[in-house]
C-alpha cells in the first residue's frame, strides 16, 4: 500500500541513521578509552542543541558561530565529566563508573529542565525549506547538510585515528593502557580527549537533528539510547560498526514506522537492541570476547 513511499522512508532513515551513527561513535570513543558505557551521551546531544538554540535566539549570534561555540561547550562539559566525577571516583569498579554516568545523565536532565523549561524548541533549517526531489523522494536541504557534515566528520575522524600521531596514541591507549603509559603516552589526557570528542560528536548530532525533530530537555535520553542500540547492532566498540549500525538502525526504524505503525516507532530500536543481544551479542561487525580472569 505504501510501497511507493519506500524511497522517502529510506531518505528519512538515512538521515536519522547518520545522527544515530554520530551518537554511536561517541559511545564507542568512551568505551574504547575507558571501558565504560557513558549514559550521559544522549544528554550531550540535548545540551548541544539547547546551547546552540540559546546562543542563536537569546544571544543573537549568527547560526554558524552558535554551532561552533555549542560544540566546544559540550566538549568541555564532556571533559569536565571525566576530570571531575569519573576521575575522582573512589571506586574504580566499572559498574560504579557506569552508574556515575547515569547520575550525570539525570543531573544534566534536571539542569536542562530548570534552565530551558519543559517546552520544545527548534532551530531554523540550514538552506531553507524547499525540498529537492530525487527518485520521488522529497529531500530537504537540511538532510543534505546532515549527510555531508556526517561524512566529513567520519572521514576526518578516520584520518585522525590512522594518520596522526595523537590519533594513533589514542588507539594504542585503548588497546593496552598500561603499555601506552610505559612508552610515555599520557593515558589520562587521552581519556579526557575521548570524553571531549564524544561530547563534541553528541553536540553536533543534536544541532543537526533539531531543525527536523526539534528538541526538549528530555529529548536526549531517547536519542542516546538509539545511538547505543546502533553501536550494539554494529558491534560494541568498533568504530566502523558504530557507523554502519547507526545507519542500519535508522533505516530499519523508518521502514518499520512507515510500513507497520508509527505509534511504535520508538519501540523498534529497542526491539532491535534486545534482538541483537539475544541472537548475536557481538553485533554485526564485532567479535566475541574471550572471558578472562
Amino acid at each position: 500500500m505504501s510501497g511507493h513511499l519506500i524511497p522517502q522512508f529510506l531518505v528519512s532513515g538515512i538521515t536519522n541513521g547518520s545522527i544515530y551513527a554520530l551518537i554511536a561513535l561517541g559511545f564507542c570513543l568512551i568505551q574504547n578509552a575507558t571501558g565504560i558505557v557513558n549514559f550521559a551521551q544522549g544528554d550531550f546531544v540535548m545540551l548541544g542543541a539547547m546551547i546552540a538554540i540559546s546562543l542563536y535566539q537569546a544571544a543573537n549570534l549568527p547560526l554558524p558561530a552558535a554551532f561552533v561555540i555549542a560544540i566546544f561547550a559540550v566538549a568541555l562539559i564532556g571533559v569536565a565529566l571525566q576530570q571531575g566525577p569519573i576521575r575522582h571516583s573512589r571506586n574504580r569498579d566499572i559498574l560504579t563508573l557506569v552508574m556515575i554516568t547515569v547520575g550525570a545523565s539525570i543531573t544534566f536532565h534536571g539542569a536542562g529542565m530548570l534552565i530551558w523549561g519543559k517546552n520544545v524548541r527548534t532551530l531554523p533549517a540550514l538552506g531553507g525549506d524547499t525540498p529537492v526531489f530525487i527518485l520521488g523522494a522529497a529531500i530537504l536541504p537540511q538532510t543534505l547538510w546532515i549527510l555531508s557534515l556526517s561524512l566529513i566528520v567520519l572521514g576526518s575522524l578516520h584520518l585522525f585515528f590512522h594518520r596522526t600521531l595523537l590519533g594513533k596514541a589514542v588507539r594504542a591507549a585503548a588497546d593496552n593502557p598500561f603499555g601506552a603509559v610505559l612508552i610515555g603516552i599520557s593515558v589520562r589526557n587521552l581519556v579526557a580527549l575521548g570524553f571531549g570528542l564524544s561530547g563534541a560528536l553528541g553536540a553536533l548530532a543534536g544541532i543537526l537533528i533539531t531543525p527536523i525533530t526539534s528538541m526538549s530537555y528530555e529529548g536526549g535520553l531517547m536519542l542516546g539510547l538509539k545511538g547505543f542500540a546502533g553501536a550494539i547492532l554494529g558491534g560494541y566498540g568498533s568504530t566502523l560498526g558504530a557507523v554502519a549500525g547507526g545507519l542500519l538502525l535508522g533505516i530499519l526504524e523508518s521502514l518499520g514506522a512507515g510500513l507497520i505503525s508509527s505509534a511504535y516507532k520508538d519501540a523498534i530500536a529497542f526491539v532491535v537492541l534486545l534482538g541483537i543481544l539475544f541472537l548475536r551479542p557481538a553485533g554485526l561487525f564485532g567479535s566475541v570476547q574471550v572471558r578472562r580472569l
Partner: protein
Amino acid sequence: MNSNQEHADTTHLVLIPSQWRALLVLAAVLIGIPLTLQNDYFLLLFNVMALNGLVVLGLNLLIGSTGQVSLGHAAFFGIGAYLSAIASVTWQWPLLYSFIFSLASVGLVGCLLALPTLRLEGHYLVMATLGFNIIVSILLNQMDDVTGGPSGFPGIPQLSIGSFTIDSDLKFYMFIWSLFLILFALTLNLTDSRLGRALKAIHEKELTAEAMGIPSHRYKVAVFVLSAVYAGVAGFCYAHYVTFISPKTFDIFYSVQVVTMVVVGGMGSLWGGLAGTVLLTSLPEMLHQFEDWYVLIYGLILMGVLVFSPQGLVPAIASLPLFQRKTSGDKKDTGRETEPGRAKDQARHRIWTHAQTTSGNRPDAARAMPVLQLQSVSLSFGGLQALNEVSMNLSAGEIVALIGPNGAGKTTVLNIISGLLKPDRGDVLLKGKSLLGSAPHRIAALGVGRTFQTVQVYQAFSVLENALLGYHTRGGAGFVSAYCHLAGERKEEAHLRELALRLLDDFNLAPKANAPIQQLSLLEQKLLELARALALSPGILLLDEPVGGLNPRESAILVDYLQHLRERGIGTLLVEHDMNVVMRLADRVVVLQHGSRIAAGSPQEVQRDAKVIAAYLGAKK
C-alpha cells in the same frame, strides 16, 4: 565483620533470620508510627515507602549477587500493576487469580530478558533493561484500548480477603509493612545461606565461583526473576491500593529513583537499601516547593554518593571507628598466630585424618587407569596456534608436572580441562567420559578441583566462608528452603560448617576461621585455595603455579602439603616454573613448547632431553 560469629551461634535457628533482634526493633518502630502520627498524609507517605522498599529489596538482591544493575524495575512494577488491573477489572477475575497471573507474567518476562543478557560480559543488562522499560512505557501509552492509554486505568478493586477489605490508609499500612517485614526477613535468610554465599561469590569472582561448581548463569537468572517478582508484588499492591494507575508512574525516572535508593543506602546491603528508601522517599516531602528540582537533586545525590562513598551511606557509617569496637576484639582473638610452617610436623601426622576420602580411591588399585585423558587437543586463537595435538594422561594418585617456557600453552591446557576454553579439535576424558561441551561448573562438580596462577580467594568473605564455598556442591537445599531457613537446610548448613572447620584444621587455618581474608599471608591464602579445591572431593586437581610468589621456606611447606595429595589418590596436574618443586613432586613431566608436546617422561629423563634443553636454554647451531 562480627557477623560470622553471630551466624555460627544461630545456625540452628529455623525460619528466623540471625538478625532477628534488629528486625524486632524495626517492627516495634513500625507499630509506633501510626500511633504517634495520626495523620493520613503521613500514612500515605509510609505506604509509598513500603512499596518502594519492596522494589529496592529485590533490586538490592540483584545488585548484591550479580553486580549488575537493572534500570527496568519500573517496568516490572508497572506490569505487575497493569496486568492485575486488567485481569480483575476487564476480565472480572477473582483477586487471587489476578495476583497469580500478574506475578507469573512478571517472572516470565524477567526470565526472557535475563536469559540472553546475563550471559554477556560487561554492562549490557543496564541498557537492555532500560530499553525494556522504554518499550513497556510505550506499550502502556499506546495500547489504550487495553490499558486506558495516557489517561490511565481507573476503578481497580481494593484488596480484600473474604469479607475484609483493605479500604483505609491505616489498614493498608498494616498490610503492606507486614508484607515488607516478612519478605525482608525471608531475603535476609536467603543471603545467610549456602545459596546466598554462592550469589555473593558470583558477584566478586564469577569464574572462580564456577570452578567451585556454582552454576553462575542459572543463579543469576533466578535472582533476576526473583527481583523482578518483588517489583511485581509491589506493583500489584500499589494498583489495588490507589485503585487508579497511569503510565507516568512506571517510566524510566522511577527506575532511576529506586536505583538511587539502593546506591545511597549501600549496594548489596539490605538494611542499607531500607535506609536509602526511607531517606529518598521522604526527600520530596521535605522539598515540597521545589518540585522542579527533584530530577537535578536525584542526579546529584546519585553521582555524589557514587564518587565519594561508593559503598553507600549505611556501610560507610557502620565502618566509622565508633562502631568498630567489636571487630578489634575479633582481631585479638585471631591474633594468636599459628604459623603453618611451625606446625608442619604436627600437620604431617594428622593431615587428611579429617578430610573426606575421595570416593574410596585406593592409590595402588586406581593407578592403573588414567582418570584424565587429553587426546590430540588443538586450539588456535586467530592465527596463533596455542595448542597443537597435545595428548597426555593422568592417573589417580599421580602428580604430573606440565612445564614449558612462557607462552607454551600450559594454562591453556588447564583452561580447556576446566571448560573455560573449548578446543578446536581433540577430546578431554574424565574417567572415560568426555568433558567437551560441559559448563565449567559441571566439570568442577564432576570432581575437577582447581587453583589459579594469581590466588583467587574471596576478599569479602571470612576464611571459614571461603572454605564453605568449596562445599557448595555438597549441599542440596534450594531457594525455597534457603528463603525459609527450613530445618533441613539449617541442618545441612551446620554440617557444611563442621566439614569446613575440619578442613581448615587440616591446613592449620582453623584458628583464623573467622578472620577476614586480608589477615592471611600469601602462603595461607594459597593453602586456603588448595583446601577449597579439596572440598570438592576432586578426582583430579589442577594447580597453576602453586608456589609462585612464595619464598623457599614457604614453598617447602606448600610442597609438603602437596606430597600428601598423592596418598589421597588424587591425580594432580601441576603447572610450575620452579624446577626444584617439579623434581621433588612430579612422577612424570610433560614439556610443552609453542603449543606442542616436545617431551614426556620421568623428571630425570626430561632433564636430559636435548629438545627440552634447547627449549629452555636455546640450541647450539
